[in-house]
């Protein structure tokens, strides 16, 4: 049951990203281009919509998940150097092209030109972290 639900979630997530406009890197960059005089605030509405639904669901969630024994214990750690450095690197990459991981993977399914190069590099970046001993 878990993989079936996960598949549906992935599908729904992909449709949401596409409807939201996040599968258009130019639109993402239009949101990040705060100082160009032509700011497109649309993606703020994506955040508002997603957070509204998810926060509500978390507040009303049943005591245990439907298909798992328990919710994971989310570790309470403070803001550390890894979080800051990683978010910094991510922000640079995001601002250069306009793809974050989700939309980049969805674009792979649409065979968008350039998405294969970006997607492969993204995977190499993830794998590099895996072997980096960090």
């Amino acid at each position, binding site marked *: 049951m878990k993989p079936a639900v996960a598949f*549906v979630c992935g599908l729904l997530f992909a449709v949401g990203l596409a409807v939201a406009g996040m599968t258009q890197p130019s639109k993402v960059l239009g949101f990040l281009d705060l100082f160009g005089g032509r700011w497109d605030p649309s993606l703020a509405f994506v955040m508002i919509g997603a957070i509204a639904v998810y926060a509500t669901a978390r507040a009303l969630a049943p005591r245990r998940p439907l298909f798992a024994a328990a919710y994971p214990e989310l570790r309470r750690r403070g803001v550390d150097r890894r979080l800051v450095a990683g978010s910094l690197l991510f922000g640079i990459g995001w601002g250069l092209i306009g793809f974050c991981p989700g939309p980049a993977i969805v674009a792979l399914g649409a065979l968008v030109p350039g998405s294969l190069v970006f997607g492969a590099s993204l995977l190499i970046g993830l794998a590099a972290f895996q072997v980096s001993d960090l």
Partner: protein
Amino acid sequence: MDLAHFTPIASLVGGLLIGLAAALLWISNGRVAGITGIVGELLAPARGDAGWRLAFVGGLVGGGALVHALHPSAFAAPRGSTGLLVVAGLLVGFGTRLANGCTSGHGVCGVSRLSPRSLAATAIFMAVGISTVAIARHLVGGA
């Protein structure tokens, strides 16, 4: 403001769908819908932990194919040389894994529960993304 490209309704509806997908994954499977973590941990999965991750990624890719078949204009190619795509992809992959999350895991799921780490991460990658665009477009590129 760029009102020609402003799509508040579509973006809000898209956001609601994203939130719904993340909510379903939490309530049914007890998992956080963080794309970086879901994909990253596929590279060295714990026993019995790969199936749902593969299925989720399959849904993302399948969803991309489906939307493209119905509405190809939902997609646009990234602009930039192959070299720039490679550099950006590496930075996004390595950076999000180092930070333990990206726009979905930190920006949506973490911010929703007011996690201090996720609030900090989101503030940083937003500010750096905005700065990067400002520098690339208005100081270097002139686009």
